[in-house]
């Protein structure tokens, strides 16, 4: 039976939530195609995580003891490469995470295995693995296959596959790690500077601004409107990068996910994949944008194609 290998990912002593999504995707693929699922854990003490990755559907856990506590790209690349040599999995699944961006492509070229990234649907068509991902800023979808490849390495998009709650008791083995020369060295983590600012992940109602705000001087009126409405002010990446609002207000992949939000009023946000990753789950998204084709209208519940300044001005009258 062919194997699906999942690489567990952890940071600062905790498995990432995405790891459980990737395991869920592997179990789904296994069940449809009579395969096995092996989760590999690279850590200074893999037993810290062994129990947690023992999710229902996982057949085996392979522990590899490595010299570093945090992610290091040469170590991940070399150990996974050696494991593929030994285990010959048909599919290797990683999260489409920053850490995976940092080694998956190098691993793929080293092995010349099948490879693609940011996949949100996986299936077999006969013997061919078919992966679906987006193209042209999500306007299109593409189906890819990997002819002639015995192993295919895939990174999976987040928030697509639902983690499995049930547990299991997989067979646990360990893997002897080859000697590795690490060419990068982790010095330390730097926490986002959010001293004294609100925690937008707790906000239930948000008013968020994007590029459409155009100038720093225009930010204030939206801050006032948010205040009058009792909403928390957030923003998309360009606003934080410009320093118009603190980084702690940024919604999206590299900012925060607004997990408790119920109403999200987006002014002048076109909706990049990265921004939508942090807010598309919100039940009541109201998007205001001059561009009727903006991506945000495909995930918003309500859309207003209009000048954001006109709408903001009128909206003030309703919240005094």
């Amino acid at each position: 039976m062919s194997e699906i290998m999942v690489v567990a990912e952890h940071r600062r002593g905790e498995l990432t939530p995405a790891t459980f999504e990737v395991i869920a995707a592997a179990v789904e693929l296994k069940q449809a195609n009579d395969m096995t699922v092996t989760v590999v854990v690279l850590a200074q003490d893999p037993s810290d995580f062994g129990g947690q990755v023992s999710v229902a559907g996982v057949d085996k856990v392979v522990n590899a003891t490595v010299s570093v506590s945090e992610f290091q790209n040469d170590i991940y690349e070399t150990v996974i490469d050696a494991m593929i040599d030994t285990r010959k999995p048909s599919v290797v699944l990683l999260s489409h995470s920053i850490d995976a961006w940092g080694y998956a492509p190098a691993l793929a070229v080293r092995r010349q295995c099948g490879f693609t990234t940011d996949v949100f649907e996986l299936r077999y068509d006969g013997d061919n693995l078919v992966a679906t991902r987006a193209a042209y800023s999500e306007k299109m979808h593409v189906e890819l296959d990997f002819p002639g490849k015995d192993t295919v390495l895939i990174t999976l998009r987040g928030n697509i596959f639902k983690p499995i709650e049930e547990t299991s008791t997989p067979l646990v083995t360990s893997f002897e790690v080859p000697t590795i020369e690490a060419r990068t060295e982790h010095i330390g983590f730097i926490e986002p500077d959010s001293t004294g600012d609100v925690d937008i992940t707790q906000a239930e109602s948000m008013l968020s601004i994007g590029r459409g705000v155009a100038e720093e001087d225009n930010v204030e009126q939206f801050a006032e409107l948010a205040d009058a409405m009792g909403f928390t002010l957030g923003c998309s990446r360009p606003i934080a990068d410009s320093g118009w609002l603190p980084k702690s207000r940024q919604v999206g992949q590299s900012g925060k996910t607004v997990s408790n939000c119920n109403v999200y009023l987006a002014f002048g946000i076109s909706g990049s994949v990265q921004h939508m990753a942090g807010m598309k789950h919100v039940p009541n998204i109201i998007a205001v944008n001059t561009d009727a084709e903006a991506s945000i209208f495909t995930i918003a519940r309500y859309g207003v194609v209009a000048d954001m300044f006109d709408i903001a001005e009128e909206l003030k009258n309703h919240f005094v």
Partner: protein
Amino acid sequence: MKILVPVKQVATVDEDCEMREDGKDVDLDYLDYELNEWDEYSWEEAVRLKETHGNEVEIVPVTVGPESAEDGLRRCLAKGGERAIRVWDDALEASDPIAVARVLAKLVQRENADLVLAGTLSSDHGFAATGVAVAGLLGWAHAAVVSQLNISPGTARITLRRELEEGLEEEITVRCPAVLTIQLGINEPRYASLRGIKQAKAKPLEVLSHSDLGLDDTEVGESGSLSRVRRMFAPERGQAELIEGTAAEQASRIAEIIKEATGGLQ
């Protein structure tokens, strides 16, 4: 120190676009191009290094793409750098990011570069793969999603910050030579001056084919790729319920929706 900066033109599709006959891509007539946003930042980083270190540093923007991709290279040259390189021929059609990386790695070797600054990802297809694949092909050290960078020419190690999830950053050192992929926000890209734009037109732009770089046909295009496109299609997409009317009417309706959703909370 020679720094190569791979840049690309990203495509946006028109609404109501048509597919190519083989169904594997959008008909080219329906695509508009501009320089990838991430590459504005990687090039700016290179230009700043050049400004700080003068003759110790050479910066060269390179691209893999047809003649129209020269717009992106000229855009870079308008801000700095003295020459650019473009690689293209028909065999490069249908290259995935890995096949493109193969071309870039050969360019790095040909130019004897010491550092590659690539964009972290591209806004059209978003593989986030090309830069790190170049490093893999060269056997170089690498770091992805760099948000802060301090380089002195001739240094054996570079200290930098990587941007991780949820606003967290990591400080690491990386051995040289290296490939670094640059994140948005690392700097503030400048606008080109009119004089710069004019000068860029006269700067040399070398055009090469894959065979000029010693690559054979099987190493590029579909056969040099690690994936193959079966088909491309327009997905069913959600569509927001549009609120019509004057600004005043639209705002009233928004207020109503908000009051309903928040249970009158203000």
